[in-house]
Every structure is written in structure tokens, then in C-alpha cells.
């Protein structure tokens, strides 16, 4: 009887300790998960901001202004346009 009790006590102690460890592990992993999810949100935010920035740089009005002023591009008048029919035949 005494031996059984000692044995059960040992089992109990082992179980208790393993519960503590797994609980601790779970908490640690959870904190990690939280942190990673937070990071994911931050990246999403940054992605939105970058998209915003990109489309602000690429607004047609800005592109056109740069093309016209600093690059000196312009639309050719129709007198300077020669049409090539499909197939390239002259």
C-alpha cells in the first residue's frame, strides 16, 4: 500500500511539473504568435502606405508634367504622323 502511494505521488509530481512546463510553453508560444500577428498588421499598414505613396508619385498629372517640362516631350502634330497599316505593308 505504501509503495503504491509513493508511486502515485511520484506520478502526480511528474504530471504537475509537466503541466507547468506545457503551460509555460503555451504562454511563450502565444506571446510569439501575438508578436508575429502584430508584425503582420504592421506590414499590412506599411503596404497600404507604400501603395499610397506609389500611386501619388505615379499620378498621370505628375507624370505628364514631368514629361512635358523636364523631359520636353510633346504630342506630334498629325502632319508628323505616318500611319503604318496592320501587316506592315506599305
Amino acid at each position: 500500500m505504501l509503495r503504491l502511494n509513493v508511486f502515485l505521488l511520484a506520478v502526480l509530481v511528474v504530471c504537475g511539473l509537466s503541466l507547468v512546463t506545457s503551460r509555460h510553453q503555451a504562454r511563450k508560444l502565444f506571446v510569439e504568435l501575438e508578436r508575429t500577428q502584430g508584425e503582420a498588421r504592421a506590414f499590412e499598414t506599411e503596404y497600404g502606405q507604400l501603395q499610397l505613396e506609389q500611386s501619388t508619385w505615379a499620378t498621370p498629372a505628375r507624370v505628364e508634367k514631368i514629361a512635358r517640362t523636364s523631359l520636353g516631350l510633346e504630342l506630334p502634330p498629325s502632319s508628323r504622323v505616318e500611319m503604318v497599316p496592320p501587316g506592315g505593308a506599305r
Partner: protein
Amino acid sequence: MSAPRPPEGARPLGGKRREAPHRGDHTRRAPPPALPRFRAAIVFGALALAFGVLAARSLWLQGFAHAFLQEQGSARYSRELEVPAHRGRIVDRLGEPLAISTPVKSLWAFPAKLDASPPQRVKLAAVLETPASSLARKLDADEDFVFVARQLAPEVADRAMALGIAGLNEQHEYRRYYPAGETMSHILGFTGDRDVGQEGIELAQQEWLGGHPGSRRVIINRRGDVVEDVEAIRAPQAGRDLALAIDTRLQHIAFRELKAAVEANKAKAGGLVILDVRSGEILALANWPTFNPNARHGVARERMRNRALTDVFEPGSTLKPFTIAAALETGRVRPDSVIQTAPGTLTIGPATIHDAHVHGALTVEQVIQKSSNVGAAKIALSLPAETMWHTLSDAGFGAAPKTGFPGEVGGRLRPPKTWRPIEQATIAYGHGISVNLVQLARAYTVFATDGELKPATLLKTSGPVAGRPVLSPPTARAVRHMLELAVQPGGTAPKAQVPGYRVAGKTGTAHKLEGRAYTHKFVSSFVGLAPASAPQLVVAVMIDEPGAGQHYGGDVAAPVFSAVMGAALRMLAVPNDAAVDNVILPPPGSSVDEDT
């Protein structure tokens, strides 16, 4: 109460009885003093009472104050956190972002509880980039609650919070940005403080775009870190992205040309719509005046109106093709039937209709080409009112175009039973009827297709959409041919021609109605389609009150049409259906002007 005393020397926990030192047991022994019985009773009673009080207290705590205590207990370790869900983006048909929500922070305080030292205030003003005086006005305001700064970039707010000012708090918010700025503000509308749609598409599509924040219960530790998820109370639902039919590039072209035209003509306002003929999608919709949705503080409501959808005007001659189409459908006239328009006036009862120029005998084709009011009125009067009404109604007049835009109007088309002959005659050339610009552009899809009216939509569709047949194909083609004549020399709008493409269209110059009388202010318009051999786009231009000397649609609106249509067709790489030197302008002074 009077337990026998243990023998002297006995150890209460002693394992082995040791030999106690002898100090003469018998000499110390005395009989226990006789205590009065009532003393024991008093002690017992006192203890029993104390126990009773404890029991009652615990019963009270367990039974009645349970809920309160449970709440207080969990408040020490459990928290309900909001899980944010951001609003969906709005993108154009190519996926270019038009509206994006991004997190920002607002700083707030209870002025009574705020405790900022003078150096802290100076630093705060520097971080917020505001003058110290205006900051002081907020911090010392006689209010319960103030926003110290709204919708700051998160980094700026973090720097302000890092100053460690007691009583300064931050609040997370979303702010919506519109990269296209003023070019597209009327369509998109904007959102309010809580990122909820207030105008335009943002309002109309609130259900689709809006996210629903979730919430979850968690356990936190002493430092406030979340250590465990207890339950998800509500799953967050992020807003969905929305693709519009708008093409940012065409929108830019439309806006640029419209703005230039309104400014050059010193006009009060203007609108421009580009429609895709096959799908009915609105590829561009520009309005002037406009506003910047990213900085709309103090902008008059007047500038925020999407005039192309929410305002109506009398269309003038742009309506004549529908009159002619109704007549062709009955078979009473043919494109080459001759109508006598001399002497350029037509008197119906007390009223007289005028042409700007006396044209004499014109064919039905020439009535459109020269835009003769008398000719259109004579043709209209040969028709039953119901027939004309049916054609106009089937072309979408008198009913809202159902684009899904909030506040769109349908214009006015009175029932035919109430038409008097003079009204039937004026409706023939677009007076006594009102339309909005999108409606007018959409109606022209019946000439751009072989007689089908396409549904106009602001949202992207996947491919061609079947329309509703309104006219027979031969009629639609015949009218399209007449519209092509109108933009050629001898027509009213040679300035609408586009190099490299055949175009077709109709001018409109309508006197504005103010109160009950027509004034000497005008609405100049042009609606046209191209390429005429296989139409792909309809462009409608409206210039309100041009004030720089010219007011004819052929002079004011047609050049805008030409610039926009040409650039749009090139942008969309539509194959040419004419040589690039196809534009033939009449010699100066020989142009044909119309009067409505």
C-alpha cells in the same frame, strides 16, 4: 474548557520520551482554580457570534455580491480587446488605388486634468508643428474634452506621447487618403471621422467597403501583455475592395481638358463623361468646379456636387437625333425626305420657333447636320405625341440612370397626354425636357450600338453587357451616319473631328431657363461617339454658362470632345479607321451655327 494538563516534561512532538529533569513534581502540583461557569459560556458565546458573523458575511459575498466580485476579479486580469478591421480599398479598373485607409492617431486630453510644464508645451508644439499659441488655446480650453491634434501620422503621435505629458492620451483611428485628389473627388466622395462613407461611392457602397471590428477576451499579465486568448467574442470582418469602372488615365485626360475648357471659356461649371459602348461602364466622369478630398476643410458644398449625375439641364439640340429616330422608326420619313424649313421660323399658336440661319429645303439628314430647329419641330409635329414619348422614354430620359450613385436624378419628361403642340415642337429640339449628363451620354449608346441602350454603371463589369433594344438597327445606323455628317464641314461641329478616326456627334446650345423665362445664358454641349465604323466610346461634354464670347456647342464643347476622344482612343489603342490627315476644317467665317 478545562482540559487535563499534560504532565510536566511531556514534549508535544517529542518522538522519544526523554528523562525529564526532576524538580520535585509533587511540590508544584495544585488543584485547578475553580472558574465560574458563566465565564466559559461568555467566551463560547462570543466565539459562536464571531463565527456566525463570518458565516453570514461569506454567505453574503457568495450569494449576493457574487457578480460584482467576479467582475472585479476578472477586471484584474482579463480584458476585452477590439480587433480592428480596416475599410476596403477603392481601385480603378486597372487596379490603381483610388482610396486607401491607413492607421493614424489622434491626441486628446481632458484640459482640467492635463499637466504640462512650459518646456513640455514648447516641445509638443514643435512635434505637432503648430504655433504655441494655438496649442495653448486647445490645452487651456474651457471644455471637458479636447482633441489636441487629429489624425496624425503614427510616428508623430508616438513622438508626442514620448514627451511623457501627464493627461495626454492617444486614440487609434483610420484615415482615408485619395491619391487621385481633385480629379476624382466627385465620384469617390469621402468618409467621415470614423471612416464611414458620407458622400459618393463611399456612401453608396458603405456596406461593401466598411469593415466590422471584432473583439476578443484575453488574459493579461502584470505588465499588460496579452498572455492568453480566452475567447473570440466577435470575429473581425475586414472591408472588401471595390473596383470601379473608372480608368485613371482617361479620367486624367477628361479632367485636364474639361478644366482647360472651363477656364478658357470663363464658364461657371462643366462636366464630361466617357462611356464604354460595349459594357455601359463609365470610364471617366469629370466635373468642374471640384475640391481636394484630402483637404476638404472649409470647402463649399457647392463644389462637392457631382453635377454630371445630380444636376439636370435642358439638353438643346443634342436631343434632335432622338426625334429623328422616332420619325424614322414610324416610316413616315426617310433620311432623304425633304423638309421645308424656309423662312426659318415656325409659328405655333402664340409662339414662334426660330432657326439661327435660314436654310430653305433640307433633307432629314441635313436637319441634323445643320441642326435646324424648324425642321426638327416639323418632323416632331408629324408624329403622335405617344410615339415620340416612347422613343425618349426608352432611351432612358425621364428616369434616373441607376448608376447606384447617391442623389442621382432622372430629369423631367412629362407624360405625352399633357403635351401641347408647342411643347411637342420644343421637346423635338431639347427644350421643355431636362436630363443629366450621364443620362445623355448613355442615351447615345443606342446610336453607338445598333439600337441598344446599355445600362450605365460606375462599377467594373466583366466584359460586354447586353442592352435593351430601343431602335431597329437600320434606324440606328442611319442616325449614326447623320451624326457623322454633323461633324464634317457643312455641319455644326467640324471642330469635333479627331485625326485618324471617324467620329459622329451632335452639338447642343441651349438657353438657360431661370425661373420661368429663358435668359441669354447658355449651356453648350456636345455628345459624340467614335470610331464611327465600330463605335467604342461615347463622350459627352457640357459647359455651363461660357462667358468668353463664344457660346455655340460647336465652338465651346466640340473642341473638348475632339481632344478627349482623340487622346482616349489612342490611350486605349483603338485601331484607326481613317487616315491621320482626315480633319478638314471649313474656311473661317463659313461655319454653321445652331441656335439651341
